[in-house]
């Protein structure tokens, strides 16, 4: 066993940390919070030039050919800085399944645009149930002539307002099993029959209700095969769960660092509050939560990197991250006292994003089900 990073991975982390500290200070995060676009196009294009958007895409599609673990490291740093923008939607939710399931024409057409920063993508799965199972998908994609006609609503679609394309999970037929007859379609987000309405969130990230009112999609827009879409959705949920976990891990690290510094500086009773055991032990619980997330994350990401992904490891990582990120933020506010509850303090920026992270790529219930099945508990 080897828990160490390769030298190039340390370098990637260091350069990402430098870049993000410079280009995405908290003042910028707050500014973007108020901005309609929800991201900084200049930073986006800089990241494309650095090769980050196509980090794991092969050279022939303008990418860097790096490993999934490298991508996790990069996203950990993005999470540390809570970089706003469509990186997760474009890369984790769309570029990865396009690369895995796309045909040659689709990959040649779409992936270079993604690598170069010229196309933003997002993924539409969740509907009114707010959950992620095949039974939750009811959007219809009916075959009419050579096209599919999409009718239905998607909720919590990230970055839809700036997306060029949406991967839409829809039903292309009737079936006895909810997983069958689901198909993923590549849809032009600018189609006039698509209505994109903001779904304002407490996190300040950009999520939307996307309505498909007889949206006509040519049949060559099917990703992989008709009726095989749930396989893709599961792939996306698993990969994205790990990458979201990486973001959360970076965020946990930042919150702990900030809180630890504060505990050393803040004087009460003529002593730094960090000298009190009541405070130290909260910080220690945060350390243990953070390191728990780190190692579960690295294990899951590493397994994907070497081609043996483990749904069980992935679910363990995301379930733990969901619990830890929330707990760390709540304790961090407690250690800060009232200042942690203000707009001016950074902790609130992290705390407000807890729910967005928790409900991205599967909530704890979903992941617990994977874990329970892994223990051999019969499924009802």
């Amino acid at each position, binding site marked *: 066993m080897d828990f*160490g990073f390769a030298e190039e991975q340390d370098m990637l982390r260091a350069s990402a940390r430098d870049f993000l500290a410079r280009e995405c200070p908290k003042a910028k995060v707050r500014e973007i919070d108020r901005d309609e676009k929800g991201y900084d196009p200049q930073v986006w294009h800089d990241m494309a030039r650095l090769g980050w958007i196509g980090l794991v895409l092969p050279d022939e599609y303008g990418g860097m050919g790096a490993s999934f673990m490298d991508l996790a490291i990069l996203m950990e740093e993005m999470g540390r800085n809570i970089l706003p923008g469509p990186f997760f939607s474009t890369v984790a939710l769309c570029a990865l399944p396009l690369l895995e399931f796309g045909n040659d024409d689709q990959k040649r057409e779409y992936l270079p645009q993604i690598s170069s920063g010229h196309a933003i993508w997002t993924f539409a799965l969740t509907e009114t149930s707010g959950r992620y199972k095949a039974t939750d998908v009811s959007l219809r994609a009916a075959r009419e002539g050579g096209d599919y006609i999409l009718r239905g609503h998607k909720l919590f679609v990230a970055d839809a307002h700036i997306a060029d394309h949406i991967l839409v999970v829809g039903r292309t037929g009737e079936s006895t099993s909810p997983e069958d007859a689901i198909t993923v379609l590549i849809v032009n987000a600018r189609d006039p029959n698509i209505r994109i309405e903001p779904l304002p969130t407490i996190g300040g990230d950009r999520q939307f209700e996307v309505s498909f009112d007889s949206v006509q999609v040519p049949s060559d827009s099917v990703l992989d095969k008709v009726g095989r879409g749930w396989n893709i959705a599961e792939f996306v949920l698993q990969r994205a769960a790990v990458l979201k976990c990486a973001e959360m891990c970076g965020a946990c690290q930042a919150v702990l660092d900030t809180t630890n510094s504060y505990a050393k500086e803040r004087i009460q009773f003529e002593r730094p509050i960090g000298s009190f055991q009541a405070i130290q032990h909260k910080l*220690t619980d945060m350390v243990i939560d953070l390191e*728990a997330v780190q190692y579960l994350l690295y294990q899951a990401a590493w397994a994907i990197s070497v081609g043996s992904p483990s749904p069980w490891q992935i679910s*363990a990582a995301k379930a733990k991250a969901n619990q830890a990120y929330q707990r760390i933020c709540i304790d961090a506010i407690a250690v800060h006292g009232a200042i942690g509850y203000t707009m001016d303090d950074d902790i609130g920026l992290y705390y407000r994003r807890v729910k967005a992270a928790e409900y991205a790529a599967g909530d704890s219930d979903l992941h617990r089900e994977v874990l*329970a099945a892994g223990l051999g508990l019969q499924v009802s």
Partner: protein
Amino acid sequence: MDFRLGEKELALKEEIRKFAEAELPADLVRNTLIDGEFRDFEFEMSVSRKLAQKGWLVMSWPERYGGRNASLFEQTVYEMEIAYWGIPGAWMGISGTQWVGPCLMMFGTEQQKERYLPSIASGEKDGVWCTCYSEPNAGSDFANIRTRADREADDYIINGQKVWTSAAHRARWCWLAARTAFNTAKKHQGISIFIVDMKSPGVTVNPILNYYGRHHFNEVFFDNVRIPASNLVGEENKGWYYLMQSLAFERRSLAPTTYGACRRIVEDLARYAGQTRYEGQPLSQNAVVRAKLADLAVDLEVLKMFAFQLAWRISLGQIPTYESSRNKVMSDDVMKRVAIVGTEILGAYSQADPDSEWAKLDGAIQGAYLGFPGQAIAAGTAEVEKSIIGQFRLGLPKSY
């Protein structure tokens, strides 16, 4: 990075499984898991000898002392599996294989190594050790020990009282921390380590029964116990340094053993839930039961990662500062929750005496439930360990 176990570790797991199935009585678990004390000492020692014959008992020791230089990863897997199967006899008392032997190799004289290591390595009764650290006024404040060793010609004379001494009633030897200098600037500066023959005149061992009547602890009195000066380990008054090393060895193996024991319980609970029907369906289909067991599985996985991460750091030659404390806190937490969730899943049956015919899962849950509060205190309370993490991982002021 690489999170795979090697061929050796995987083969070892399989061999231990076969060993456990061949050597252990089917109902042994009720006596062993968590609680750690085997009622049948002769049986325990017979297993020690078999473990030695298998080359497992001191696998990570060098060949010249009876080991085979196994990696710390192999050792970690061994500890996990020993605890998983509830195999007795692996520790030679609680300390022979785990910290007395390794510390003697680091700090002992050649004569001491030759005298004491072979009997530990071969699983003989003569190699069973206890560890005399705690005293009535030296618990978490360990450096406050008062037991004294006074030099008299070629001997030391030991006087004092130790408490919470596990396995003292079975041990041939004692690994003793005693004070050799008084009025030092700091109280940890005057401590030395000694080897004491438990058969020496003046040694008295009194049992302390725990709250469910088991005899694991003892109090040990030293009344003018004379030991040869050659039984001093290392240098006089340098004992604190050796103690920190021995505690590091002790705490390292906590996560692997807790992981193994708790993994077994969670698997047993999952099987129980599948076989137990309530309101027309197996308990395993109950959403609450599923969620509780899934949560335990996550934290077990964390504990496993922590165990291997610590082994990895030590195997790189690094000296971990806070990881052993982290692992202790996590181990305590996992054990507590496994025990409590276990009782919730067994329901009213969780109160049945572990030896009664009403006990489910051979009494393993009761053993865990009765055992965890004590385990959480041994080798450093969670509060002390968290303060160590605060100091060494977070750079916060010493708070104790």
